């Protein structure tokens, strides 16, 4: 028996401090996060939603016009929540800059910020957005003034990137390999050199031919400047990781009724279990439940009978589109059944699709009602 995910119980629980919405790209994570936050605010909690790269019109519906690293209160006419709703859009570059400024002395910070390699890492490295989302979550949690923080996760190919990217960035920043590349003899020690042999020198040479000696030199200078503050970085990332594992956190895995999205959802559920991170349940977005019991075969047969007579075109259309809908709903149920068979203990809620995209608070509230099963 599959349990229904009780969204209202989750957001009403004073012990729930952080809700993380994760899932593969294009499944409606941001919309789910925003709708959930709006609902929590309406139910009396002081809520902030941290969004990452929302669609423009969705951002506008929350009154967000540009990247801004500070939560802004959402004030829209007709929206008077019992609690409060704040929203922000992550600015990863500024979050990174702020971290550097906070951890390095002013001189060193300036040196780091001006380094071309830092500029590459802070704006285009694929793990930076995830790392900075974690950092910002840590900061918001440390403020202690929020009843509930709802986090959207960065759009990525794989839902697991969110958990893995900070580690990947750490590997780059920790600089072991870069020290090897720039000064192999000093960093690697004789043992490693012996293993790798003479090929290593060739490799270094090849790499610097390909990416250019200047970039390698910049990277090396960056790592040296960064070294002293690296411990602080790692400690903070560790702390946020612990926050994610604490009982006040709830993960919501978001999916759409498509094979790829549900496969990613499965991976994520398994991964959360491995890391002993608290899973609240699965949100299955954009379902198409059948609204009338009439079996598809009967609808189809009746449509055939009527259309051969040439009368009642409206009834024929209604019957045919009902049969289409039953077929879609059947497929969605089948896909979901595969997931629940593999993860019978995960509670879940289906959110019937809206016929159009959400672009205002009214749309978010409607999604909120559907999330809560109203």
């Amino acid at each position, binding site marked *: 028996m599959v349990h229904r995910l009780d969204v209202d119980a989750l957001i009403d629980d004073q012990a729930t401090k952080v809700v993380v919405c994760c899932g593969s790209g294009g499944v409606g994570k941001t919309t789910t996060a925003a709708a959930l936050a709006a609902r929590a605010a309406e139910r009396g909690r002081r809520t902030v939603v941290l969004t990452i790269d929302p669609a423009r019109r969705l951002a506008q519906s929350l009154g967000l016009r540009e990247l801004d690293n500070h939560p802004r209160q959402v004030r829209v006419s007709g929206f008077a929540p019992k609690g409060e709703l704040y929203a922000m859009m992550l600015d990863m570059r500024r979050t990174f800059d702020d971290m550097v400024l906070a951890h390095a002395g002013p001189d060193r910070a300036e040196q780091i910020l001006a380094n071309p390699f830092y500029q590459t890492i802070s704006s285009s490295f694929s793990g930076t957005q995830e790392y900075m989302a974690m950092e910002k979550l840590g900061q918001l949690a440390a403020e202690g003034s929020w009843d509930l923080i709802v986090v959207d996760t960065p759009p990525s190919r794989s839902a697991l990137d969110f958990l893995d990217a900070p580690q990947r960035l750490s590997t780059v920043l920790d600089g072991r390999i870069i020290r090897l590349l720039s000064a192999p003899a000093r960093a690697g020690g004789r043992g490693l050199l012996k293993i790798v042999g003479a090929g*290593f020198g060739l490799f270094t040479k090849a790499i610097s031919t390909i990416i250019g000696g200047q970039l390698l030199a910049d990277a090396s200078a960056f790592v040296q400047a960064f070294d002293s503050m690296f411990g602080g970085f790692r400690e903070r990332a560790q702390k946020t990781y612990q926050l994610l594992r604490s009982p006040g956190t709830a993960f919501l895995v978001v999916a759409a009724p498509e094979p790829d999205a549900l496969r990613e959802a499965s991976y994520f559920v398994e991964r959360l279990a491995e890391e002993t991170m608290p899973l609240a349940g699965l949100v299955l977005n954009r379902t198409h439940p059948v609204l009338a019991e009439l079996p598809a075969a009967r609808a189809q047969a009746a449509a055939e009978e009527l259309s051969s007579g040439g009368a009642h075109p*409206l*009834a024929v259309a209604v019957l045919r*589109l009902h049969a289409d809908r039953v077929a879609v709903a059947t497929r969605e149920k089948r896909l979901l059944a595969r997931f629940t068979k593999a993860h019978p203990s995960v509670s879940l809620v289906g959110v019937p699709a809206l016929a159009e995209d959400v672009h205002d608070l009214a749309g978010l509230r409607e999604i909120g009602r559907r999330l809560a099963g109203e």
Partner: protein
Amino acid sequence: MDSAVGWTDELARARLHVVTGKGGTGKTTVAAALALALATGGRRVLLVEVEERQGIAQLFDRAPLPYSEERIASAPGGGEVRALAVDAEAALLEYLAMFYNLGFAGRTLKRMGAVEFVTTLAPGLRDVLQTGKVKECVGRTDSSGRHLYDAVVLDAPPTGRVVKFLDVTKAVTDVAKVGPIRGQSEGVVRLLHSGDTAVHLVTLLEEMPVRETMDALVELDGADLRPGAVFVNRVRPPRLDAAAVDAAAVGEVDEDQVRAGLLAAGLDLAVDELEGLVDETVDHAVRVRAEQRASAELTESDLPAVRLPELVDGVDLAALYELAEKLVAQGVR
């Protein structure tokens, strides 16, 4: 999209078909169906993926593809489709091996993560290596000097990233000022900007995917890359006529008329069931209206368009052949 002209002669001459689209639009499925369609009638086509997610293997229901060109399907009329999953690390090592004899050191460094580190250090490098491999496949000839592949279909990164991926000139200027990579990239740039290459865009008839398609067109234009066709995927059959759509979209469905029709077919439904049918009809009509708006916006792009139907039962191998047939019927060759 009644003004659509289908597959043009210009597209028929292309040898590299790049397929992109917003995530979730069915890019990989379309790329696979296109490869099958192009192979129809006895041609040899290579289907390439670059995102290291083994989408092709999943679609064709087989074990993960190694870094080699494997035959994965035969096409009607004696054609064949081979597939290749380009792995940037393997491409880098293969590439280095052309210039330096790394031997054992190459493998050791790979284990240490050094290769991933280097491609991380210079993010554009990954793209340069992958497009370089694709170019090599497009240009490869057999002993008699004929092209080994009649066409290459590339399942490319999604629209948000595709121009950056294809804009090798920019990436190389950023990472390699001199040296062998630079020389090789010049050939890639020539291919990507020539008439041999077409960049196809996959979309659904929904607001966001169409918006992304239009944005991508502007970006492609800015980078001097040539757009090919728009593939409108997962098209649902029309059920209501135009007047009924307009009425139902604002909630006006003549319940008495529906009831009379149902009774004539021997269906006497309870009130709430009839209301359920009406709600489904309104839902359908609102969606059709949104599709019409999306379709009108796409028409403005003035690109050739082909349509593929929604497959309710999902995509398996048989469905891929069905889609390929639909493409051939719309002139894809």
